[in-house]
């Protein structure tokens, strides 16, 4: 994936090879500027690769589609729509009849614990609540793949931890495959069943680690020595890249 033309061109991503199974939770972690968001936007179909291709169930991705839902760090929500209209947005575009729409919206309001906020506008909600709405909005369209671009990056530590647990719970009960971009090592290990560490300039995959143990709902996984070891490994791997990009 290259940006720009001629001598100003920047190679954002190079020789990326990654295949993902259904219902995996892939964390993509790396220093800023390593192209982890670009990778996500390629899968989303918002950007087209300069060379190579993205395949989904053996069909090449040519543009955005409802089989892939995306949650951004900010600005996923339409400020002029209420919480329930935001969640219903994709359903309306699909032409889902009203009764059905209302039922799905109510289900998803419950899923992300936003009962009572249905008629509020995004600006009346805290950052954490806005991201809950964004997740509900995306899940309501029932995508196969959930693309998340540092969705909890702008939240305070407590809210982030709570939303991480809820996202894991939602993922465990559902069938979605998740690609989760973050610069937070602990978040990457706490959520991902596989953790992709990226290197920068040009952006490429450095290593892919499998989390060998399971994290259940409500687990205090921080106390698990295996978790600490994996987190330390990932952190050292990322730090190497941060140090390398400084020189």
């Amino acid at each position, binding site marked *: 994936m290259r940006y720009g033309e001629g001598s100003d061109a920047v190679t954002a991503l190079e020789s990326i090879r990654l295949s993902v199974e259904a219902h995996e939770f892939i964390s993509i972690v790396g220093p800023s500027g390593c192209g982890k968001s670009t990778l996500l936007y390629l899968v989303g179909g918002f950007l087209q690769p300069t060379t190579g291709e993205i395949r989904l169930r053996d069909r090449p991705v040519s543009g955005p*589609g409802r089989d892939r839902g995306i949650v*951004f760090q900010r600005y996923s929500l*339409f400020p*002029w*729509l209420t919480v329930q209209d935001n969640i219903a947005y994709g359903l309306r575009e699909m032409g889902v009849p009203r009764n059905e729409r209302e039922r799905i919206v109510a289900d998803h309001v419950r899923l992300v614990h936003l009962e009572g906020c249905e008629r509020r506008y995004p600006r009346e909600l805290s950052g954490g609540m806005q991201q809950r709405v964004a997740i509900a909005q*995306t899940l309501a369209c029932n995508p196969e793949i959930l693309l998340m671009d540092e969705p909890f990056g702008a939240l305070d530590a407590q809210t982030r931890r709570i939303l991480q647990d809820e996202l894991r719970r939602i993922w465990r009960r559902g069938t979605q495959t998740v690609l989760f971009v973050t610069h937070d090592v602990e978040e990457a290990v706490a959520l991902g069943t596989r953790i992709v560490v990226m290197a920068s300039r040009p952006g490429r995959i450095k290593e892919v680690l499998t989390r060998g143990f399971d994290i259940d709902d409500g687990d205090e996984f921080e106390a698990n020595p295996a978790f600490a070891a994996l987190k330390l490994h990932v952190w050292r791997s990322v730090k190497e890249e941060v140090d390398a990009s400084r020189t």
Partner: protein
Amino acid sequence: MTGARRGWQATGRNMLRILPVLIVLALWQFASATGVLPKSLMPSLFEVGRALAGLIASGEIVPHTLASLGRAGAGFFVAVVFGIAIGVLMARMHSVQLALEPILGLIYPVPKPALIPLFMVWLGIGNFSKIAVIALACLVPIVIATFNGARSVDPMLLWSARARGTSERRLLWRVVLPSALPQIAAGVRTAIAIAVIVLVSSEFISSEAGLGFLIFSYGGVGAEDAMLAVVLYLAVLGYALDRLYVAGLRKAMAWHAFAH
């Protein structure tokens, strides 16, 4: 905090708002009464007030108000419809932007009342030429606001909508226009003030009714108190229109945090 107390605080804030106006009016009356401001230069506030009360009580001002509001309203309405359409076209189609941007740049600084004689040659001395000048003057700020609003739509919102199944054609209605709305609303607000300003100038020339005509004819016969009475009336009318618009906007666009 109780509702009643909040109500009192709001009343207090509103009183504070008009306090500077009251002070200026009091200084005016004081200067007239003490002879600092001689009658030959300017009538006193009380005389202007008496003239205004007369104009309203006799009903004389009503047909002129209606004539003026009709012209300003017609020109303003045309400007809103065409201004939003042109602004959106400029933002969405590069060729339209290239064609219109320099023309707009030239029209912007021209004092629109200066075009009235030309418009009269084209459209006659009746209402049409006046409405056309008002429309042109109101058009420019609306086009610029719409253009800027529609152009600066957050690309993430467009991506978000596309990923949720919105087609390129529907993006305009579902995302571009709603997200440009706060800026469009600000441009329309500017246009309201401009409509009043250009209205009065257009009525100075060859009209038989309207508030501008009234100012011009009272000024011509040396009735400064009545002339200033109409000016004061216009100021209050323009202010009321603006407040009404802003209040309506806050209600209609509750999702947006307005600065004013």
